[in-house]
């Protein structure tokens, strides 16, 4: 057998980078659970968790340890293989999206130019869509395998909700794609670095995308899939221990990734300031890459805060309201946005 003709250094570089990204998303998601509890507490005039470690900073670890030591229950009437497959799929699909997000500009390390992006595929944003649309399988499989009618209802709700909002999301994005003319996320960020941030060109599109992102992440006001009061936890009501932890954790990773996607698509990704040419500072490439990555993370954190802020402000929609909003309001609005954008582009080109 002939030796595989592969650039091993590149493979190593990518592997390390993947490991770093996964670690970062896990740690961020870990502290998002803490942040969520803190934000909830502040909004409700409370102090929030402050016992584990200084300022309560070890709280996520305590939560994790608690999850780990909980009794592992697999219901006897459940489908065991699928019952375990469900949370695993939810976790995997949540992690997969991070592959196409450009986390920073090019950096130089050990004489190599390293792109801070795992894969700059030319269908970047479609890849995100593909993975997001697969995210529903984790929930559906888990809910069906639980063999519990409330779980099943939660799963069905999740499936119909995610499919409905994916349409509006895609339509809102088409308007953006008409402006950028590229599906590659790296390319989009470069365009925004040179010109305007897409938010200023597509405010309505961004708004539709934001609402749909809430729905795709199953966050309040669209968390009907796990509505505590009517479905007792929905798709994860039969789950316990780490498998439940996986589901809950996947939600936070999804939030993190969708914040990153929104920051990349509409807020210039790793671009530091809008309407400003950062190269004027004359900093070295590595420093710029670092600053850019930091800027991206600040944007992501702001979005995460908005996610939490909305969750602790707005009550849950009723199911018919959810469907009405998705099909009768957001989709026509997205189509309208698309038409206006197309008309403006046509007008400017003439």
């Amino acid at each position, binding site marked *: 057998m002939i030796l595989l003709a592969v650039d091993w250094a590149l493979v190593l570089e990518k592997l390390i980078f993947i490991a770093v990204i996964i670690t970062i998303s896990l740690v961020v998601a870990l502290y998002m659970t803490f942040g969520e509890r803190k*934000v909830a507490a*502040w*909004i*409700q*005039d*409370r*102090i929030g968790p*402050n016992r584990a470690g200084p300022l309560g900073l070890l709280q996520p670890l305590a939560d994790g340890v608690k999850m780990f030591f909980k009794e592992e229950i697999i219901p006897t009437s459940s489908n065991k293989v699928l019952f375990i497959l469900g949370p695993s799929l939810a976790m995997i699909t949540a992690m997969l999206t991070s592959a196409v997000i450009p986390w920073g500009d090019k950096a130089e390390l050990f004489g190599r130019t390293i792109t801070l992006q795992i894969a700059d595929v030319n269908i970047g944003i479609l890849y995100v869509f593909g993975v997001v649309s697969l995210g529903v399988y984790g929930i559906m499989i888990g809910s069906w395998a639980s063999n519990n009618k409330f779980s099943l209802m939660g799963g069905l709700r999740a499936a119909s909700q995610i499919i409905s909002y994916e349409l509006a999301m895609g339509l809102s994005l088409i308007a953006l794609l008409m402006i950028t003319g590229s599906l590659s996320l790296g390319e989009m960020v470069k365009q925004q670095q040179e010109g305007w941030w897409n938010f200023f060109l597509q405010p309505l599109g961004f708004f539709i995308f934001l609402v749909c992102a809430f729905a795709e992440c199953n966050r309040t006001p669209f968390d009907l899939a796990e509505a505590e009061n009517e479905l007792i936890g929905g798709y994860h009501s039969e789950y316990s221990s780490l498998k439940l932890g996986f589901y809950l954790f996947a939600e936070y990773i999804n939030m993190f990734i969708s914040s990153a996607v929104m920051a990349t698509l509409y807020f210039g990704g790793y671009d530091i300031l809008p309407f400003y040419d950062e190269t004027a500072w004359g900093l070295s490439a590595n420093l710029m890459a670092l600053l850019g990555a930091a800027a991206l993370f600040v944007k992501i954190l702001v979005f995460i805060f908005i996610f939490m*802020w*909305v969750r*602790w*402000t*707005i009550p849950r929609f009723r199911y018919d309201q959810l469907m009405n*909003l998705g099909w009768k*309001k957001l989709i026509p609005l997205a189509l309208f946005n698309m038409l206006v954008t197309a008309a403006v582009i046509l007008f400017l080109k003439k």
Partner: protein
Amino acid sequence: MQLTNRAKQVDRRPLNFAEKIYLPAVLKGMGITFSHIFKKKATIKFPEETRPFSPVFRGLHILNRDEEGRENCTACGLCAVACPAEAITMDAAERLPGEEHLYREEKYAAKYEINMLRCIFCGLCEEACPKDAIYLTETFAPANYSRQSFIYGKENMVIPHPKENPEAFTKAKGLIDERKAKASQQQ
């Protein structure tokens, strides 16, 4: 009949356009919640911080001693009679020779029990006591697993000895003096 003027008629008009797109209401709500982030917190870090008790608060009982560490109680039973919840029981005993350093008078309470589940913390025992022997302090009865453990005996209630444990004594004495001062203020 109108009890308060806070009653509001429920508005059942269909939503107008601004209400139908939800956004103004959503933004208003988000403004409210955001302002709450900076408001004064309603909760406290409990074991480290405690809320001030009201001046008339009545908590767990304490049985007093005099400066030489002799118990004041003579087991006269007035507190038990005064108690509306019948929470106090006691056994009287005669002071034997050689026990003068333990009890102030010839008769003392060999057993003195208060059932804290019955007690309503009314403070009538305190008022009934002619010997300056029982006071209510500013502490709660802590939670416990068994009913038996809520029957407090002398070992739970007698004030620490002023000579063997002067610090704890002065602290507990301080509580008693505070109560006395408050009582005299009220009169």
